[in-house]
């Protein structure tokens, strides 16, 4: 929580690093509040990908912030008044951790009591994410896909192998770094696959797996250079992969409609409804994983490719 002092610094590099530390602390807090899936996502996204993206855009802009010339008093007053109003509202809020809170009275008991029998998946977060609220998740996946498109429109990815840097000029030929990363990357990718396919039973799922997988490749590119990384995963594959991921998700929904059930009703996928649920969740998590992975990696390519042009 003390990482909030980030706002006082003018060295943006320090600000971004502090923000990464802050994200990691937030993830620990989520862990303490019994939200393992969320902690997982926050650690992978906030402390990993966001920091890398912010650093690459810092590289493209400026490191030092100009000293602010305006008077902060007005902003402080606005913030103070809003904060006071919120605190006043919070005084009426239900007490933390009380089982009789309104949150635990309406749909949550149904998810918790019926979830294991209706969906047959031990991880209730996955059950709610993929089955009960599959529409929402489909919407989120489309939003991520659209955001990836927007970044591509703004920055673009060059796909010309002759102009790529080999990476030696960035970090130099650092033997220790390369050896360590060589060992780490297969582990990261393996872990990503585990998280992807074990999401039904433990913490994890398509969103986390996609981010972890992308992190592996980002690390690879950072150390071994663009030339090698883009030979392994060319950007033009990623364009298609992102679309394929969203299409898998939507396709499952359309298939269940064709089979005479509602959109995204997985019981249409197999004879036994529970088997259908399993299969459906596996498929759409796969779609989410592919979409998230390719969009995150594409965004990173867009930022790192930009620095090459300048």
């Amino acid at each position: 929580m003390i990482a909030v002092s980030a706002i006082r610094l003018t060295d943006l590099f320090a600000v971004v690093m502090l923000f990464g530390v802050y994200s990691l602390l937030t993830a620990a807090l989520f862990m303490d509040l019994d939200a393992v899936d969320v902690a997982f996502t926050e650690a992978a996204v906030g402390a990993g990908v966001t920091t890398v993206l912010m650093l690459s855009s810092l590289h493209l802009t400026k490191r030092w912030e100009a000293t602010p010339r305006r008077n902060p008093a007005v902003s402080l007053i606005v913030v103070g008044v809003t904060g006071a109003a919120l605190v006043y509202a919070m005084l009426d809020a239900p007490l933390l951790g009380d089982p009789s809170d309104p949150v635990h009275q309406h749909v949550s008991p149904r998810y918790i009591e019926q979830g294991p029998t209706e969906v047959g998946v031990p991880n209730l977060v996955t059950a709610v994410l993929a089955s009960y609220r599959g529409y929402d998740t489909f919407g989120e996946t489309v939003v991520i896909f659209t955001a990836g498109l927007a970044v591509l429109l703004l920055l673009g990815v060059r796909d010309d192998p002759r102009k790529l840097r080999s990476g030696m000029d960035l970090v130099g030929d650092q033997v220790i770094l390369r050896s360590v990363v060589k060992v780490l990357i297969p582990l990261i990718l393996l872990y990503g696959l585990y998280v992807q396919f074990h999401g039904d039973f433990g913490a994890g799922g398509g969103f986390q797996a996609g981010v972890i997988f992308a992190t592996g490749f980002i690390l690879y590119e950072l150390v071994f250079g663009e030339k090698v990384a883009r030979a392994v995963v060319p950007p033009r594959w990623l364009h298609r992969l992102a679309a394929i991921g969203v299409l898998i998700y939507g396709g499952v929904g359309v298939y269940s409609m064709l089979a005479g059930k509602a959109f995204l009703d997985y019981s249409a996928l197999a004879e036994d409804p529970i088997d259908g649920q399993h299969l459906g969740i596996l498929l759409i998590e796969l779609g989410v994983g592919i979409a998230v992975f390719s969009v995150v990696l594409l965004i990173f390519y867009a930022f790192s490719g930009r620095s090459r042009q300048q």
Partner: protein
Amino acid sequence: MISWSPGIFNYLIVVFLMMSGFYVVIAQGNLIKKLVGLGLFQTSVFILYISIGYIAGGQAPIITDEVADYYSSPLPHVLILTAIVVGVATTSVGLALVVRIHEAYGSVEEDEIHARDWADDNALMEAELEVIAADNRAAESGNESKGNDNKGKDNRQADNHSENETTSKEEGMQ
């Protein structure tokens, strides 16, 4: 370090974080720092949701063999899980915009960008004035030439002047 006795301690932290982020967004001029502030604001909302879903003495919502009395509510977890990933996607759109702004303006400070905008607008206005004046001279070459004398002076004056000239031009057309 932090006592988890039932209470509103978490909510106070949330308000504090939220207001810090809000302050950064409205008071700081640097666009990247504004995005960091937005991120602070965002995580404060995450913490709020997760705190609401928490039950003291409960378990993470994963059904195991040993049955627990309480599980924390899975619904807020799902909402926030997707929100985090969507958050990084939207943040990267913001960063991409900042990068493009930096390429166009050479700065990511709000003040400098506004200054550049004003300068550009003024330059544009001057250029338009030149064109209008030239048109005027061409249209009214036979008539008496008027109103070209205070060109390039104070902008507000120049603005009025351009309006006058446009109307006079329209009259000339009729």
